[in-house]
């Protein structure tokens, strides 16, 4: 009980102190008390709130405003001295607030960020001296914030997520872009830094936000002109450095994601990425998949010629793929790559056959996709119909298709037949069994819509099965005592 009351009391006290100080500016003791408490490391949250209220109101009331006249030293009036003291204190405190970013508690970190940004907003609206125009963004302070956020010692993902709230303001977004090249090191920074940096880069938008909101200054007369060409230039500059860093697998994956989602379309010379993407292709798992998507963009938009691409794609269809998050992306990519009707038939047949093999061990939802996908492949390449309907009456002792062959063209798939699909007609899931029935009847004239299925999960199948309503209620007609004799569970378990 007392433990809970104490912080409450202290926060009250701190607020009281802040109010006291604001009512009588000469009362240095109050402010020093707060600062002292802040320095002690306890009750950071309420201290931050108190300091924020103190300094924002100080800035608003121009208590730290110093009129600078050119070529004239500042008069040493007690008023000026007080102001100077306050300025000194203000800068110190600001640094201390930024120090809170390293606090272990994420709540305090977030509060520190809010406080810092609020102070920046206040200062932007009410500048501290007349050397600058009356409205500006205090760049040094913003840079300090960014610097702290892009820490090389801890992962600041949540802080950066919090920072995205401020990126909705056009001025902050623009100046972040402006500051970013100077914050990008030329040589290999540490791993955590890269991950922070990539997270931030993933959040930054090239274009300005629709509603013209400004953090510093009012919305009516914008002092910032958001130049999209400039931001693009900054992006290119930044990316140039980023590409040359050394990345761990994890960071490489994050980087590829940022590249595909944000950066790729704004790069001046995307073909420069080819080497990087080729290297990434050789890394197994999702990285190669992402790189493949990058290469797809290059092939489509920038006339890149990459001969071995189908082998790469072929090699990605491994049993493990169904247990990764990126399987839908792979299906999407495969669909795009194989959408051409001018591919050699044995190549496409190899894909169809491999997918069919994988379907034998895939989860139900994927089997449905694969069945429809194979159907689409056969629709696009009528020559593949021999996989479904081959009047050859010879009997084989083994499947002519060679699963282990890396090269799809040599896998001899075209001489095989889709026995796997016939097997899948005996799948326990009725939805799968029905999807596999497509080989029994002539193919439709329109392709199956695979994109609709790609995001389906096992949960969806469960829900759909529940909705399938039939009035028929079918019970076992054998009594449990009789059934016991051939109940399998009994044969394996002591029950």
């Amino acid at each position, binding site marked *: 009980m007392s433990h809970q009351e104490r912080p409450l009391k202290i926060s009250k006290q701190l607020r009281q102190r802040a109010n006291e100080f604001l009512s009588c500016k000469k009362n240095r003791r109050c402010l020093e008390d707060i600062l002292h408490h802040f320095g002690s490391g306890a009750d950071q949250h309420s201290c931050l709130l108190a300091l924020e209220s103190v300094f924002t109101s100080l800035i608003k009331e121009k208590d730290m405003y110093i009129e600078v006249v050119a070529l004239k030293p500042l008069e040493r009036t007690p008023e000026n001295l007080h102001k100077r003291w306050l300025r000194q204190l203000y800068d110190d405190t600001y640094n201390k607030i930024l120090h809170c970013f390293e606090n272990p508690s994420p709540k305090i970190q977030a509060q520190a960020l809010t406080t810092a940004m609020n102070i920046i907003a206040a200062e932007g609206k009410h500048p501290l001296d007349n050397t600058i125009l009356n409205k500006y963004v205090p760049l040094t302070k913003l840079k300090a914030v960014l610097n702290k956020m892009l820490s090389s010692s801890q992962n600041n993902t949540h802080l950066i997520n919090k920072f995205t709230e401020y990126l909705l303001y056009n001025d902050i977004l623009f100046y972040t872009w402006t500051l970013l090249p100077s914050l990008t090191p030329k040589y290999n920074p540490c791993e955590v830094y890269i991950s922070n940096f990539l997270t931030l880069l993933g959040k930054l938008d090239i274009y300005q936000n629709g509603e013209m909101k400004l953090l510093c200054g009012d919305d009516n007369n914008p002092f910032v002109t958001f130049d999209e060409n400039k931001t693009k230039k900054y992006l290119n500059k930044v990316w140039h450095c980023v590409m040359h860093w050394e990345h761990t697998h994890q960071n490489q994956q994050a980087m590829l994601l940022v590249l595909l989602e944000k950066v790729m379309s704004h790069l001046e010379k995307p073909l420069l990425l080819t080497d990087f993407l080729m290297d990434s292709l050789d890394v197994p798992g999702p990285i190669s998949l992402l790189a493949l998507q990058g290469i797809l963009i290059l092939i489509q938009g920038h006339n890149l010629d990459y001969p071995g691409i189908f082998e790469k794609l072929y090699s990605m269809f491994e*049993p*493990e793929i169904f*247990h990764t998050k990126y399987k839908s992306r792979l299906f999407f990519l495969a669909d795009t790559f194989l959408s051409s009707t001018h591919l050699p038939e044995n190549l496409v047949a190899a894909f169809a056959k491999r997918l069919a*093999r994988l379907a*034998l*061990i*895939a*989860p*139900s939802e994927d*089997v449905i996709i694969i069945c429809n996908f194979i159907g689409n492949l056969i629709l696009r390449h009528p020559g593949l119909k021999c996989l*479904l*309907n*081959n*009047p050859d009456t*010879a*009997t*084989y*002792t*083994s*499947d002519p298709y060679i699963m282990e062959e890396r090269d799809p063209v040599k896998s001899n798939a075209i001489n095989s*037949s*889709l*026995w*796997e699909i*016939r*097997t899948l*007609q*005996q*799948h*326990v899931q009725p939805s799968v069994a029905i999807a596999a*029935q497509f*080989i*029994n009847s*002539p193919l439709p004239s329109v392709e199956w819509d695979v994109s609709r299925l790609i995001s389906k999960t096992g*949960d969806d199948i*469960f829900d759909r*099965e*529940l909705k*399938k309503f039939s009035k028929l*209620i*079918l*019970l*076992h*007609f*054998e*009594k*449990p*005592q*009789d*059934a016991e*004799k*051939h*109940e*399998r*569970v009994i*044969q*394996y*378990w*002591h*029950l």
Partner: protein
Amino acid sequence: MAKVKNKKRSSSDKVHAKKEKLNTKKSLNPFEVHINKEKIRVVGQKRKNDRGLPGVSRGKAIEKRKRTLLQEYKIQNKSNQFMDKRIGERNGKLSEDDKVMARFTAVRIKAHNKKSIYNLADDEVLTHKGQTLSEIEKFDDPRSDDEDSFEGNSGKLDKDFVEEAHFGGGVLRNTGREGATSHKDLINQLIAESKKRKAEKQQIKEETLELTEKLDTEWKDLIPLVNTNKSNDEEMPKQKMDDYDKIMRELRFEARGTVSDRLKTEDEIAKEEKEKLEQLEKERLERMKGIFTDENSKPTHRSADDLDDGIFYEEITDDNCMLSYNKEGEANMQIDAQLNGKEIKIDNEKDDKEDEDENGNESSSDEDMETESEDSFADLKEESSESEEEVDGDAQDPEKVIEINDELTDPKEPSNDGSENKTPTTTERQQNIPPRDLQDKIKQDLLKRKELMEQARNELPFTFSLPDTYESLLKLLENQPSHHQGIIIERMIKCNHASLAEGNKENLGLLFAYLLQYINDLFSEATKDTIKSSCDILKSLLPQIFELAHLHKENAHNSVLEVIKEKYEDYRKKKKLHPGAELLMFFRLISLLFTTSDLRHQVVTPSFVFMEQILLKCPPRDRGKLSYGFFITTLVLQYTSLSKRYSPAAICYLSGILHMAIPKSGVKLIKVLPPFKSTSSDLVLIGNHSLDLCKDLKMDTTDLFSTCYDDEFKIRIFHNAVKALSEFNENLETLPSCVEIFEPVLKYLEMIPLQNYPVIVQTVAQDLILRLQKQKENRQLRKIVREAEKPKALRLYEPKIIEIYDTKRHKMQSKEKAEQSKLLHKLRQEKKGALREIRRDKEFLGRVKIHRRIRSDKERRNKVNRIFAEAAMQQHELSAMDRKKKRKK
């Protein structure tokens, strides 16, 4: 009210008048008839409007307008009108007298208007047989009417008297009689006589009344005497009864089957049962195949007379020898049934022996040995003996007695007691008859259980009411041993059978839900120590749950589905966590309650999805989790044992278990599918156990709650996984990709050092390896050929017959659209008609107006003329007077 009536009458009068008019007008004026020319003559067509009477119909229309439109026109722009509402005034048919009558009745009716309907004695005096009601009411004991009427002298003057007094007399008669009294005397005599008679009648009435009352009181005194006599006389005549009486009574009270459902012989019952089961099995197989083989099931042969109505004759199989059963329920011949392509043989001898065994052990408890196929009289006897016992034990139990009676009247109904019932035909369905020793073991187990049941039967009370809350059920079952719990529920169901009372069905449904909840609680809280007893309880509850499910199918279905849904919702939140052990038991329950072989089943299919999710997503972190997964694979095996369907997740899981038993060298990575890790080698046997004698290789429920792997467990799970895999392999043998499916299994098996395992396990594994290798070598693949499409037969057998033929061509439309267009057509027609009517109305009104105008003009002209004439006359007189004056002057 009166008004309405008048109107009605007048309208009916009109109709009447019209009819008369029509009758008179039958003879048509040939000059009025207009014959419509017909362009095309269609034979046999009946035409409605081949001739018309334009003049007549026009006249009719004008008449009608005069009656309706003209009247309206006349009162147009007038706020009130004068109407003669005197009754019959506007009806020319009524004579003056009729009018008066009608008006009088109207007045009388008015007297009975709503206000006065209950004031009976207001202005009228009601009478009954000439006496006012108030007079009648004075009698405090009014006798009914028929009492009077049945009596000979009704207080009225008799026939002779009336004849003489009223109609007699006359000159002739009078003279014939001596001492004839005067008329006045006669009247006096008459009055006296009638008074006397009345008095007599009154007296007789009173006497009878008195007598009946006396009798009543005496009867009441006698009642207790009569009753005691009744109870006594049951025994008394018994001694006196001679043989004849006895036989006669026996014959009278013998149980007789009604004509409609005669008692069936044992053969028939057995046959029926068999047919029923065969039918069910056939349906099950059809459902299993789902929609695939719909076309195949159609008869291949098709005659030219085939109407394509789906009727076809099944081939009549040569079934001369009838299957029958003797008293012990054995068939008189060996049954070679074909099921799913497998031959099933039931050895008579074996059954014989078993039955003997049973007889030996169970001679004390006779009733359990009775089989369904036995003589129904025996069944009756058995039931009645049981009932006697029960009545002895618990005599004041009306419900029970009723229930027994119920069974008595319906001997063919399969007895509800699951444990007593072993239908001989179900044994036919046994596919995999377990090896002899195993069967014996099961038998012994069963016997043991039966003994326990017997004990429980005697210890527990005979009736239980249905619990109204879950808590009360818990209280009832609390601290009872497992077999008692089964008995309790069994008795609960019997005492509250749905046929006994309204609402019992719902309550039993509720009981089903409570039992599910009970199982849920039982297993979700189970630990390593309690799991055994929980399993026992479940085992004893299973027959009852099955029974309940059959009593209320919808409810069972819905509640189980609800449970699965709820469990899945919980699981969905944390996909990597294994749900509790209760889920396994629910899955097992589903496999026992529902037909798992259907292609799609409302409960089973979601369960399949659920199991697949668990197998794919939940990593087997320790022994308990691994056993959990293995339990599910055995469930999958059970679910698919009949349908032979393929579940990739189950086989992947089993091969994952094998993978865990491979010693990893560390250099080469052996791939395995998630949720297994390619590095885990928890099941690798380290020591050599080849000499161990493992007696018990079955999995144990306690495995579900243990965490660490020990060698014994490793051997057991390996053995069971291999066994399950070979069973899966057996099921999936016919699939074309069977080799591919089991390829990883073979690969893993070959990498496992089998020599470390006990001999039994080794042989099982070796068998599987050999089997898989053989399959791989002897594989025969034929390329897929799509079935050639059947050529469409020309269907020229019969002419196309359309029931109603009209020359119009009907568009092929949907029903709604056809309706719509029909309505539209009708609307158009009506609109046309209405417009024509309006036009004619206007013409009519125009005519009326012009007539009025002409008439008023004429009138005015006449008036003017008259005025002129008068004025001229006046002028003439004036001028005449003037002339006279002039002359005078």
